[in-house]
Every structure is written in structure tokens, then in C-alpha cells.
């Protein structure tokens, strides 16, 4: 081990320790809990080893909830990308001084508490709310904007789009403008340049942003509760209920493990994407 190696391990140690204690160990605990029986009043009955929880997670009832969560999280991800990419692109093309201000504006909502931002949507969208009042004044509506899937997707998209903007902006920043210039010089249209040069080279940023939105959305339980009016059950709500209401920790752990599995697969795909893009660039 060289001196430099030693130094880098030393510098990594606090971060690694953090990861192992607060990430790896809890994940292993979750995987371990899956195979035990629930205690009547919560906790775990360590005396019984069982695969029943795993089998139960694939019961059509829970599979439907997982599937719905995948669908809603995917919708939110697509919406966030459709809004986030043009925004990031515009910011990257803005004069340098304006860029700082624009990025600042993009993350400004994070200065307000998540719950308050979510409640603000209730004020806007409820049947007697601002949007429907405005619609009524021009003879439209009332439209059912709240307590449905639309409101949940909207809430998730709204909350997580800034992550997409930041991730894609970072990718666009790293992109050497001479690639696009060369493409234009060689006669490609602006559209072709975007589809063939800019988008593929910023794919790692897109993937990173998409994984952010997807992973945060699928585990979210506050937005479905508030904007979905509790009528929509997502995986996050189901897990919350298992741990807190049903006092069924092993089944909650099983569902968590499935979610962790889904996320790992996604992160793996994202890593593949960035490696391929890096390989092409060098």
C-alpha cells in the first residue's frame, strides 16, 4: 500500500464507518427479520423461522400495491424528466451569472418544509380551492383535482423535479461544447445534434435524476396520504402500516427488502449507463 493509498483510506474511514453502521447493518437487519414470525404486540418472535412473509408479499393484494407504486413512481419520473431536462438545458445556456440565480431558484422550494409545500397543493386544488374557484369564474369545473392519482403524481413531480434539474445541469456542464459545434459544422440540424450528441452524452445525468425521483417516489407515504386523500395505497404506506399499525415487523421488513431490491437493480442500471457514457467520452 502506497502512502497515497493509506491517506485516501484514512480520509474515507469516517464515511465508510457511517455507511456501514447506518446503512449496511440496518439493511442486513431488515433482510434478517424477513424470516421470522411477528410477535403479537410487535417485535419479533425469534423462535419461529418461516418463509411465509416472502410468500405473502406475492399475494395478489400486495403485488397490486407494489405494481401501483411502480406505475405511479414511473409516471412521476417521466413527468419530472420532461419538465427538468428543458429547464436544465435552458439554465446551462443562460449567461453564467444568471445560472447561479436560476439554480438557486430551482432549489428554493427546499427551504420550505415538505409538509407545508404539500398542504399548499391542498389549498390550491381542493374542490373549493383557488384553482376551482378561478375555473368557476369562467364557467368551468369544478374539476376533481385532489384526492386522486393525478394529485399524487403532481405532488411527487413537483417535489422531486429540482433533483432532476440539478443532475442534468451537472451533466450538461461537463459536456464539452465543441462536440455540438462539430456536429453543427458537419451539417447536422439542431434537432439531430440534440438527439445524437447532447442527449446520449448527458444520459448519465438523466439516469441519476430519474433514479432520484423514482426511488424517493416509490418509498413516499406522505404525498399519497395527503394529496391522495389516503385512498391510494403505495408501497411506502403499506410498509408504514406494517410497522406502526399492524405491528407486523417481519412483513414490513419483507416489503422493505423488496423495495431495496428494486432500487439496487435501478442503481445498477444507472451505473452501467454512466460507465458506458464515460467510456465513450474517453
Amino acid at each position, binding site marked *: 500500500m502506497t502512502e497515497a493509498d493509506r491517506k485516501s483510506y484514512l480520509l474515507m474511514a469516517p464515511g465508510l464507518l457511517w455507511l456501514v453502521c447506518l446503512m449496511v447493518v440496518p439493511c442486513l437487519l431488515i433482510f434478517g427479520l424477513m424470516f421470522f414470525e411477528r410477535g*403479537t404486540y*410487535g417485535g419479533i418472535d425469534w423462535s419461529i423461522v418461516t418463509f411465509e412473509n416472502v410468500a405473502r408479499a406475492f399475494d395478489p393484494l400486495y403485488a397490486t*400495491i407494489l405494481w401501483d407504486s411502480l406505475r405511479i413512481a414511473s409516471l412521476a419520473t417521466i413527468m419530472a424528466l420532461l419538465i427538468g431536462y428543458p429547464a436544465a438545458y435552458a439554465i446551462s445556456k443562460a449567461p453564467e451569472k444568471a445560472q447561479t440565480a436560476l439554480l438557486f431558484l430551482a432549489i428554493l422550494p427546499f427551504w420550505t418544509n415538505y409538509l407545508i409545500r404539500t398542504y399548499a397543493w391542498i389549498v390550491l386544488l381542493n374542490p*373549493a380551492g383557488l384553482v376551482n374557484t378561478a375555473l368557476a369564474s369562467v364557467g368551468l369545473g369544478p374539476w376533481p383535482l385532489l384526492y386522486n392519482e393525478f394529485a399524487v403524481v403532481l405532488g411527487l413531480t413537483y417535489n422531486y423535479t429540482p433533483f432532476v434539474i440539478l443532475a442534468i445541469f451537472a451533466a450538461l456542464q461537463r459536456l464539452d461544447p465543441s462536440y455540438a459545434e462539430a456536429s453543427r459544422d458537419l451539417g447536422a440540424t439542431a434537432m439531430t445534434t440534440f438527439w445524437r450528441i447532447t442527449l446520449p452524452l448527458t444520459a448519465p445525468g438523466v439516469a441519476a435524476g430519474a433514479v432520484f425521483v423514482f426511488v424517493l417516489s416509490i418509498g413516499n407515504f406522505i404525498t399519497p396520504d395527503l394529496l391522495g386523500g*389516503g385512498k391510494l*395505497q403505495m408501497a411506502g404506506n*403499506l410498509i408504514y*402500516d406494517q410497522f406502526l399499525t399492524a*405491528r407486523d415487523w417481519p412483513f414490513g421488513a419483507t416489503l422493505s427488502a423488496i423495495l431495496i431490491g428494486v432500487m439496487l437493480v435501478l442503481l445498477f442500471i444507472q451505473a452501467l449507463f454512466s460507465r458506458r457514457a464515460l467510456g465513450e467520452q474517453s
Partner: protein
Amino acid sequence: MRISSLVRGIAAAAMLAVSATAALADKIVVSNWDGYMPKDIAEKFKAATGIDLEVSVHATNEEIMGKVTASGGEGYDVLFVSSPFAEALNKMGLLAPVDPTKIPNLKNLYPEATQLKHDPGNAFSVPYTWGTTGLCYRSDVVKEAPDSWADLLTPAEDVKGKTTMLATDRWLMAPAFLLAGKSVNSTDQADLDAARDQLVATKKTLLAYDDTTFYSKLVSGEASLVEAWDGWCNYGIAEKPEIKYVIPKEGSDLWVDTMVITKAAKNPEGAAKFIDFIMSADNGKWMVENIMYKSPNKAAMEAIDPAMLTQYPNMAIAPADLLKFEQLRDLGDGMKAFSKTVSEIMAAK
């Protein structure tokens, strides 16, 4: 010289340890829902007893159950929990018996409040508030005043899409059980399935499930008819007198929030003193006037402004009438089937 300084050191350390335990013994930790006690309760309690009071808050019964089962009750002296949870904690052996000689203010309880089914004779819990679950509605908006759980579960055309139900599992299921004439504590699979079918059909007519803001939905006009705890309906009535509360003809559950002392309590004497303090007529009166829940504390109910009973008619329900309703009980192992049914309702489209 060296030895004597060592001895002195040990003596000093021992004294520190003694004073530390003394300080510990003069403090109690209480966990309660936020806003369920006077804000200055710690100062008042310290002034009355010289004991420091640390208040921690929990948002739900389930949250404090999780904390207490994980720690065996360590770190808390007194907990405020609803009666089924008090019952479960007791079955787990986590509660200390209530010693009536140390809580003289127990005499303030209505006789009915000492005969509650979850704990007859107040062996391990002292009731703090009690009430019913019923229908809270806008009398100026609904065409016909509701009087049955059917008015909520199969709503008339004019209130369809303008009703909410409580989301907490036990109260989500209760209206279906009550309408079908079943026990609110049933875990019989046929009863669960019937309740599920009813509630899945009802779900399509709901504005939302709502445990916390249903009364403001009534005030704003978003909703016209909601399932509500009587005390919470009073918050709506306070803002809009057209809001009314009714117990459906099929009945209600009787809910009771209680105070319990943990077996792991570091300061059981202080815990008993705290419960005694809460049971005083004055503190009970504060609770009724500010939280607008009924109290099982007779002295407190007699101390409040009688005008409250006219403004909020559900405050005047007699204890004997409350006891006609079935209490929610701990379901034990039946919880698993019960929870699955709730998940089925929640996942239904």
C-alpha cells in the same frame, strides 16, 4: 497522602453519584399527544410537587407502542394511550399497577369510569378522556339530517363525494361493523369480509380518508358529512355553528384515552403524583375547556361553564349513556387478519 487523596476522590465520586440519583428521582418523563395537556403543565407541576416534568410527544398510539415495546418501557414514567393499547401494554407486562392510595383524586372519577370493560377497577390505567364516534355534518348543506351509519356508507346523491371516513384502522372498520350489527371487536373472517365489501363500495363515494382535518373540510365546505370523534366535531362547531354531531341509531364505540405508569418507571412515586395532579378538578377543567373532549372526571365536568354543554351538545352525554356503547378492545392475534382486511380496502380502486 496519595491514599487519602484517592479516598477523597472516591468519596467525591460517590457523593456525585448519590446526588445524580437524587436528581434523577426528582424527575418524571411523560409521553402524551401534542397539545393534549396545558402548555405550562411542567411549571405548574414543579410548583405543586417540586418534581421536574419532561414531556415528550407522540403523534399516534402506534408510535408510542413501537417505542415502548422496543425499550421495554425504559425511559418513560407515564404514558397517555388509548384503552386498547393500555390493554396490550398490560398484557405484555409493561405496566405497573395503579395504587389508589397514592392517587387520592381518583375519587373525582364518575363511578361509571371505574367500571370500564378494558380495566374494571382501574387496576393499570386511569381514564383521561372519553367519548363517542359518530357523524359530524353541515346541517345547512345536507338535504336530510343523517341518523344512521348507512347515511355515511351508502350516501345520498347530494353528499356523494363529500364525505370522509377516519383512516385509523379500528375506526375505519367500526361503521361497517356497527351497521351490520356486529361487534366493533370482531375478527371473525365472515364479518371482516362483509365489512370489506361494504367499505370497498363506500370508498368510491368518499372525498378522502381523513383523521386530522375532517372538521376543517366541513368548515370550508369541501365535505358535508364526515365520520368524526365527538371532541373533534366540536372544533368544527366552534367555527361554524351549523355543524352538528349525531350518534347514529346503530350506536357508536366508546373510546377512552388513559394514563398508565410503566413498570420500568424510574420514579413511580412521582408518576402517581403526576396522575393525581392531572386528576384534580382544575386541570380536568382546563382539558375539557381547551381540548373540548368529555372527561371521566366528574369534578372537572361540574367545574366547567355550563354554556359549553348547550353549545356542544355532545359534551352533555351522560356517562351512563356512554357505557351503553362497546369499547374498542385489544385484538391480540386477531390483528393480523384485521390488518389484512384493512390493506385490502386501502388497495381497492
